[in-house]
């Protein structure tokens, strides 16, 4: 892979820092982060898992929400590069998936079957605090990240973590817990909305997610707010289906 261009990196850092200044919805922030990193890495799928209060990793946001990828992100609550990176507090990079069946007997074969050749995981952490993990899949052997790419992505993960944890320092320790719990519930709302739209339209959940995303952009309403409307207010669902 060619090194990520400097001006692209600079723009993403500014955007991340800027988002973290004001009131923001954590899950929207995570979506933005995964989208931008995927852009920088020529559309490699990027996902984000956060640790819930019980210490389990839970999928929260991704640049690509296909069923296949969701399963790969989710499988790592039990085993995989995300769990390793989270536990060690260190990035796991350039793991050759075809040679990793011993290390991750469930995850690695599934990822290979999905067409991926290598995988990377970057912890979201600051000193001893650990929030979650950023996960990148590459489809080809040529999709290896070089040293510079790794530093850029870990730095982005660090900036995001510092932003989130800084709020905790300025205000109180409980704020981040409240926000992370809110993000986990928002994720559930998105899945419920996918199901509702898939049923109402007779389509798959992947396609349903795309429709929800498009609708949310068209109406300039956040993804979570849109999804919440769809599952709590029948008139919103009716409007969505009519639109």
């Amino acid at each position, binding site marked *: 892979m060619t090194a990520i261009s400097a001006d692209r990196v600079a723009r993403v850092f500014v955007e991340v820092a800027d988002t973290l200044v004001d009131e923001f919805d954590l899950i929207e922030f995570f979506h933005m982060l995964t989208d931008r990193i995927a852009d920088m890495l020529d559309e490699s799928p990027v996902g984000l898992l956060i640790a819930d209060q019980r210490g389990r990793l839970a999928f929260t946001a991704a640049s690509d929400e296909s069923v296949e990828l969701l399963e790969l992100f*989710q499988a790592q609550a039990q085993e995989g590069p995300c769990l390793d990176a989270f536990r060690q507090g260190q990035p796991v990079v350039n793991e050759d998936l075809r040679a990793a069946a011993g290390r991750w007997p469930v995850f690695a074969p599934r990822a290979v079957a999905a067409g991926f050749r290598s995988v990377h995981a970057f912890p979201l952490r600051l000193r001893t605090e650990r929030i979650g993990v950023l996960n990148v899949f590459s489809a080809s052997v040529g999709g290896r990240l070089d040293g510079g790419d790794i530093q850029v992505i870990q730095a982005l993960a660090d900036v995001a973590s510092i932003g989130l944890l800084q709020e905790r320092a300025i205000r109180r320790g409980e704020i981040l*817990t409240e926000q992370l719990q809110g993000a986990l*519930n928002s994720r*559930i709302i998105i899945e*419920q909305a996918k*199901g509702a739209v898939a049923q109402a339209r007779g389509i798959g959940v992947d396609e349903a997610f795309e429709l929800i995303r498009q609708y949310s952009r068209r109406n300039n309403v956040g993804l979570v707010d849109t*999804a919440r409307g769809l599952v709590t207010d029948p008139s919103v669902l009716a409007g969505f289906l009519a639109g």
Partner: protein
Amino acid sequence: MDDYVTRVYALIAAEPVADRGPAGLSATMRRLCTAVGRAVDAHGVGMTVMAPDGVRGMSAASDPATERLEDLQLTLGEGPCIDAFERRVPVLVPNLADEMARWPVYAPEVHAGGIRAVFAFPLQTGGARLGVLDVFRGEPGSLSNEALALCLTFADAAVASLLDGEEHRHPTAADDGLGDSLGVNTVLFQAQGMVMVQLKVPLAEAMARIRARAYAENRPLTEIAADVVARRLSFDQDRQ
């Protein structure tokens, strides 16, 4: 299986059933409250079931004094419980004395009653909101990570209990789907949205129907959900 889920169901099972007072949902709720109180060393624990518009349904508490605190928020229309319900996030207040301006009527009154810390947990699964669980302590200070994890797990167990109502009063950790990680449950959440549309009912009712079906057929929730998402099973075709 998740350790906290196993522990919480064991704690609920070990909680004595009151030999006086009415049985039914309010007794189940009160029992949950006393179990939470014992587990996280609280001064009192309250639970309020709310309609989606935030209008009060019913409340229960570990003791009469806490029941008055629970009622107070609803009467005043302010407090951590109201905020947790409206914002759909836990509202954690380790030092009530710092939050007098946030709840100008509620906070001083509760503080005068000897409460120093309040932790409110929404009873919810995604878009379905059922109420709030409130933990009151007489000393300021944050909940430990362990106590926080226990409270969140108790809140999940309360949601399961409220959905099941009188039909299935004693769910166990194994059959409530909580033992799986959130990830595995993605299919369950999608199925909830699908059944909501199939039956044209609110989300919470769709969740209750899926659970009832799992009990009736003695199959895991996740299996029923997978059938729904794969369209091998539809709830609207077999309405009785």
